[in-house]
């Protein structure tokens, strides 16, 4: 068993506030949503489990274990949610079979099944896109996912996959390490507003809305 303080990247004897803050940041970093399309999702899951255990130990030893925000609970709820969401997407067994194969890293078999499919409908483009994403063929993945969304604009699962792709790009390109106060100029108010405006327009493109008033 590793030292729980070490797991959370803290010095021994850190205060509860510090523990909570570190925990929140690490959960964000290793969140399964962030690793959904990544071949290392199993490693991230394991890391998160370690972080949860360390957090539980530290918080319990501080004596108020029960009221804490528990990531696990939230996670179970989320699982439930995604299950419900994908339920109406496309209810055939082949679709799920291939999706599970991709999720479990069984790429060769998934590719074989995809190749054997005769009908190239939106779900085919979606799955092939996901598979390419996992294998590192990002350009093709983007093309296919966009195609799937075009073919079936009402399918939220496809849209979310495409949004994840764009969000991952933005998240890294504008990462706080790069845009923190430094010898670089930090983004000014004008840029901030434009970014918000762009985000709002993007959301509206996909039927949602970020800022209600415009």
């Amino acid at each position, binding site marked *: 068993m590793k030292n729980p303080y070490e797991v959370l990247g803290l010095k021994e004897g850190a205060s509860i506030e510090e523990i909570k803050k570190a925990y929140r940041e690490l959960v964000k970093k290793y969140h399964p949503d962030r690793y959904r399309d990544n071949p*290392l999702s199993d*490693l991230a899951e394991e890391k998160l489990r370690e972080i949860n255990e360390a957090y539980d130990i530290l918080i319990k030893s501080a004596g108020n274990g029960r009221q804490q925000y528990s990531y696990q609970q939230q996670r179970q709820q989320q699982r439930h949610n995604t299950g419900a969401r994908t339920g109406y997407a496309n209810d055939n067994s082949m679709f799920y079979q291939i999706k599970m194969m991709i999720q479990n890293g069984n790429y060769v078999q998934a590719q074989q099944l995809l190749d054997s499919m005769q009908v190239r409908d939106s779900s085919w483009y979606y799955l092939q896109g996901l598979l390419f994403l996992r294998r*590192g063929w990002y*350009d093709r993945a983007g093309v296919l996912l966009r195609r799937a969304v075009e073919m079936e604009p009402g399918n939220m699962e496809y849209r979310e996959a495409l949004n994840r792709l764009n969000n991952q790009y933005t998240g*890294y390109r504008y*990462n706080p*390490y790069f*845009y923190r106060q430094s010898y670089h100029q930090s983004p000014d108010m004008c840029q901030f507003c434009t970014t918000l405006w762009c985000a709002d327009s993007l959301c509206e493109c996909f039927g949602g809305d970020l800022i209600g008033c415009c």
Partner: protein
Amino acid sequence: MFGYIAPDKPDLKIWEFEVFRGYYCGVCKAIAKQAGHIGRICLSYDAAFLALLLDSLKSDPIKGKLKRCFVHPVQKRFMVEKNSAVEFASDINIILSYYNLKDKWQDEKNLTGPIGLVILRKGFKRIKRKYPALINEIEKELSFLQKLEQKKTGFMDKASEPFARLMQNVFSFTENDEKQKKALGWIGYNLGKWIYLLDAFDDLEDNIKSGAYNPLLIQFQYKHEESIQDFKDRIREKTDFNLVFTLSEMEKAFSLLDIKKNKSILENIVYRGLLLKTRNVLKIEDRSSQNEKPL
């Protein structure tokens, strides 16, 4: 090795810079030992990064000394002593430079080829005996690459795959722990892809003039009446998306590594250096990069 993997120097603390340069000097020294003093010219930043990354996974403290060397005879510099990571990085640097020169000679009949090959030959042969399995993999991927280039593949994903896999093999080679090996491999894969595509963009002008193969020219259907600048403007956004997305995948793998030391230096490279390099090569300007030049 192309030398694209570099830190954002002005943002490093002075001690961090000294340590990074210490690895760079360490690799240089190891190359001199393996391939002779003239062999040092093949040294690249990429190899320094590889040494830094692999050594940072070990918990023993950095060992090094202030030393003088004949390239910089005046002032003593901090130099990391030879360890397994530094040695491996230097070997890889020699091997990849050797293949690169060979390739250049075959493609362009570039005269630096044979001269470099003669210089590196002895070291290369020694290293080949050291890691036969790895060299075998590298040669396999390079021959894939050659075939794809001859076929003039028009997909950037496909064209960059062999070099990406080559780097995957290199980065994961020395690690024994299965999980860390997987994460290191994914770092290598994505860095390899990034290097290949960035280099392709960087070479556009030369390739158009010489008529050589370049995956971007084919994928985005370069037309002869189009000026190079127009073409670059046309493909900049798409190329940027792919390059930055590739880096973001690399960052995810990096987050999963069990880094024992030099973390802030590595983070500088992962979160700043590589992005800056991408922007500089693609010539993407925005407000925050106006004063990017070191003071």
